[in-house]
């Protein structure tokens, strides 16, 4: 039995209910509103970045086309699939939490963490390959033999966009790791699982952002 179920059984005050809410349901709904609002801010943060990218691409169409030829579409597609699967395992984790299935919750959280790790691992390979070729951001750009000038501008955006996204993946991994610990400890139950739910929402957003990033960077025609 989870810790919160034990507490209820003994008629104790809900262990995770904060004093200013009158029940877990109200608390859960409030935190859900909070998470959605936070996700809106993330959409606007990346949105601004996408607008900047769009304008730079318009101004330097040839250079951006040249630049993207250096990217490995296969690896990019692989990473897309990896994140999609991780979104699925995260959704399954939420479902497990909602139905009180602690074992499956742990398995699916671990799986999500693993796939996220694969994603970052692939990105590590991609980045080190780029660095090796001198394709670095901004003033550190060392690549020679570009067909057109301005390819450095493309890589500036490539690194900022994937870098910021990668930081969000890392933050998500830390959150999921924390959830794993709490799940093992037995904190969650059908009446209290909103941390899993909210982290799930965050994770889906991180996945969705990549779904936009991939074609914009890897599939320029």
């Amino acid at each position: 039995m989870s810790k919160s179920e034990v507490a209820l059984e003994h008629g104790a005050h809900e262990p995770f209910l904060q004093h200013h809410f009158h029940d877990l349901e109200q608390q859960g709904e409030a935190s859900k509103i909070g998470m959605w609002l936070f996700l809106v801010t993330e959409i606007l943060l990346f949105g601004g970045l996408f607008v900047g990218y769009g304008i730079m691409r318009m101004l330097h169409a040839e250079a951006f086309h040249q630049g993207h030829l250096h990217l490995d579409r296969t690896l990019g597609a692989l990473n897309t699939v990896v994140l999609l699967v991780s979104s699925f395992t995260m959704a399954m984790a939420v479902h497990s939490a909602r139905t009180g299935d602690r074992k499956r919750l742990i398995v699916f959280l671990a799986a999500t963490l693993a796939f996220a790790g694969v994603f970052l691992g692939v990105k590590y390979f991609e980045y080190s390959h780029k660095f090796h070729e001198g394709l670095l951001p901004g003033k550190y750009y060392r690549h020679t033999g570009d067909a057109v000038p301005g390819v450095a501008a493309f890589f500036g955006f490539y690194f900022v966009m994937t870098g910021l996204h990668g930081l969000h993946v890392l933050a998500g991994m830390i959150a999921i790791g924390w959830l794993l610990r709490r799940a093992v400890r037995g904190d969650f139950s059908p009446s209290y699982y909103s941390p899993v739910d909210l982290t799930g929402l965050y994770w889906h957003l991180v996945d969705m952002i990549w779904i936009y990033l991939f074609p914009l960077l890897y599939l320029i025609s």
Partner: protein
Amino acid sequence: MTGANYLTEQRGLRSWLFTLDHKRIGVMYLWSTLLAFFLGGVLAMLIRLELLTPTRTLMDADTYNKAFTLHGAIMIFLFIIPSIPAALGNFVLPLLLGARDVAFPRLNLASYYLYVAGALMALASMITGGIDTGWTFYTPYSTSTGGAVNLVTLAVFVLGFSSIFTGVNFIATTHKLRAPGMNWFRMPLFVWGIYATAIIQILATPVLGITVLLLFLERVFGVGIFDPKLGGDPVLFQHFFWFYSHPAVYIMILPGMAIISEVIPVFSRRPIFGYRAIAFSSVAIAAVSFLVWGHHMYVSGQSVLASALFSFLTFLVAIPSAVKVFNWVATMYKGSIWLQAPMIYAIMFLLLFAIGGLTGLFLGSLAVDVHLHDTYFVVAHFHYVMMGGTFIAFLAGLHYWWPKMFGRMYSERWSRIAAALVFVGFNATFLAQFVMGSRGMPRRYYNYLPEFQALHVVSTVGSWILALGLLITAGYLLASLRKRPDAPANPWGGMTLEWQTSSPPPTHNFAAVPVVDRGPYDFPPLEAEEELAGRPA
């Protein structure tokens, strides 16, 4: 009123630094933002001293340029944006809703610490070289100049999160923590104002975040987006920057208007005129505020069509603000006007905000703005709306809720003396600047043509009178804290829920969760004979 309250129930530094009580967090924000205001004010006094003569008075050009940049950055990011929402709003919002705290108390404390971190970073820039870019950081000057630009852009990034988390907290609180019986149209108008402000905080601040992040990356890594030498477009920076910074000015004014909507009904002892008009206009202003940013860029090189669109939308957003002013004036009709400090400041707000808003029409108008853009006319306009508007409303709110927050009444006599000095000083300082501006005096000028000296002298002397009034205000407010607690639960006869609990409130706000069965300004009708005398029971 003696007895255990949120100030006395726990003591010691740790109980403050690790508090989750929205009231204590609000009080910490209050002292921090007032300290920031004081620093920004000192810089303002130095600037005005330098401008007493057309050439060098007491500092060199470099120092002057850093002074006005820091003045703007401190006042905007460390005072005006956080002050009403985070200092007064944090304290009062749960009380107004009949709640025991905000939705996310830990996030609230995090907001405060992010504010402190960002503030320390920004202030540290004073000793690491300072910045002279103006608070607007236009590129390519800001991407290529030396100084502490990197530090300040990161500070702004951190402060942005503080603002965002406050917005998230307030929206969730308003949705989920209203007392039973309080439907949306029984909420005090202060809540509507803070709610509309929170919407802007959430939608606009992330764009500022990405803008300063890109600026930082351009400086550190040479990622070209704004610098033409790196293939970027400097006007793009202006679009990004103003996409946040225009809605930001509504983050500044909406809470101020929200306070006025609370104070005028109470001190007129009658319901507000046009509750729904005021409530909806707050949300309308928040929405339309996102569509007008280009009115800062009429001469930037943007297209005529874009400028025309922005001008049209800018005029539209003026209408809800005008309607609010008329509603407030109408609220005094057939009321019983009680001229105490909060009301005196509320009336001052009406007059000064009217001038500020009306002079906005000059700037929204394309042909006239060509002449007035980047002159002292703009400086005067925004000081009338931000200081004559928001800051005066802040003073109104501070005087209104001071007894509730600290359990003490202040000297009404000294408050009138101070208010008179503030009013006279403020107008002397800034009216002269409208004339300077329309006569062709540009802003951010260290040296100026001698023909403008007389007006500058008037403005500087005005700043001394204003400063005196504010120092006296600080004096009597601080003096009140040394008294024994003497404030009744409801010194003003207000009908909103914060007056149903003691002054100061207990930590858990209410003994029992209140049940709401009437509107926030449903004053009992004046009895027949006192109606003739105009006197409440």
